[in-house]
């Protein structure tokens, strides 16, 4: 018997085929085909889900970056790093204004608005300066109030306060006042005589005036009044000097 006949028997093959006609049950066929179809649709869903997640992350990131970029121009003027947000509490609303302003200086960001809403605010150098002025003003002896014009006092103290706090000195041209003009805001040439309407309001009866005709004495008295922040005294001295000598009080002694 050859090798091929050894391994193949037509009679046995035919008998085998006659007896083998069984097929798998239909319900199993359905289960398998459904599983095969589901495997493909699952694959599609697995592809779609990460894509949606990536898109969502991208949108959130872009919106966050845009929001940060929107806030950047407010912070450009601030040298300090962006401070942390401080939540607003009801008790904070009850804190007096002076205390609030101190805390504002210490934690300059995220201060509540008047309506209680929180908003990120970079530190405001101008506001801090005025707060400092207010603090200094409350410490020192308050001069008698001038009716209808309180801008005089705060503006006059500014050079002294900034000098005290080591702030950047202002230009000399701003410090210099024109002789004979009353003390006004810094930006005005402050040594010029005050307008008559203003001088009329000054009550100089309580101010002791020097009896001497020494210009140096007048000058030093005026200078001391200015340095001590006694604005009304300084103005009265100017007015009296102008009345007595017919010329404005000199800015420098050599004049």
């Amino acid at each position, binding site marked *: 018997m050859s090798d091929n006949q050894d391994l*193949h*028997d037509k*009679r046995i093959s035919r008998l*085998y085929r006659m007896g*083998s006609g*069984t*097929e798998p049950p239909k319900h199993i066929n359905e289960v398998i085909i459904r599983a*095969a*179809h589901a*495997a493909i649709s699952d694959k599609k869903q697995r592809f779609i889900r990460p894509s949606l997640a990536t898109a969502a992350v991208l949108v959130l990131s872009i919106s966050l970056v845009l929001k940060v970029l929107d806030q950047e121009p407010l912070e450009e003027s601030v040298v300090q790093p962006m401070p942390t947000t401080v939540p607003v509490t009801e008790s904070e609303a009850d804190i007096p204004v002076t205390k609030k302003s101190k805390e504002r200086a210490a934690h300059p960001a995220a201060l509540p608005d008047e309506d209680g809403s929180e908003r990120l605010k970079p530190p405001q150098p101008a506001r801090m300066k005025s707060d400092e002025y207010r603090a200094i003003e409350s410490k020192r002896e308050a001069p008698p109030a001038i009716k209808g014009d309180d801008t005089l006092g705060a503006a006059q103290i500014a050079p002294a306060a900034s000098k005290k706090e080591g702030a950047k000195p202002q230009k000399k041209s701003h410090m210099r006042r024109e002789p004979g003009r009353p003390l006004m805001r810094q930006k005005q040439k402050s040594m010029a005589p005050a307008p008559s309407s203003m001088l009329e309001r000054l009550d100089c009866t309580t101010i002791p005036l020097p009896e001497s005709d020494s210009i140096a004495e007048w000058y030093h008295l005026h200078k001391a009044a200015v340095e001590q922040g006694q604005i009304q005294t300084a103005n009265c001295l100017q007015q009296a000097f102008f009345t007595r000598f017919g010329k404005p009080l000199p800015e420098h002694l050599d004049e």
Partner: protein
Amino acid sequence: MSDTSDEKLMTRYRSGDTAAFDSLYGRHCGPIFRYVERQCRNHAVAEELYQDIWMRVIRARKQWQPGTRFQPWLYRIAHNRIIDHWRAGRESHARIEDEAIIPLDQPWPDAVMLIRECVERLFKLLAGLSEPQRSAFLLKEEAGLSLEQIAEVTGTGYETVKSRLRYALRRLRAGLEGCDE
């Protein structure tokens, strides 16, 4: 789609064409089921194994390499599943061999009674073969695999398959004496 090769159908199924799987399944469902049934000799277990084999095929579809033949790959999965079943001890090999032969589905007419007896005897003899010999015979007769492909499916050498097949046929021929055509 009937003239499309198994490999093309499998490639299309891997790409997401579910109709390709339907065609592929239609071609191989019968032979695979009979192969499993003849091996495990228990209809309920055969159904369970058969379903599990196709589930494995579905899950492992990406592991099939487009350059290779589909049929040996399919039968290798089936063969390994049957071996796993035996190794799990769910059904001892001895018990299988002691069982009666699988009853034929349809009653045969009296004129072909002799043929029916021969077929029944053939399946009884088949059940009496050792698993490697039976497996080699079934893979050749049911799946139509070549000796090389049988060696690939069963994980043995060509000569070993040849030897197993030779012994199997010798025993079957001996048992089928008198069943001449």
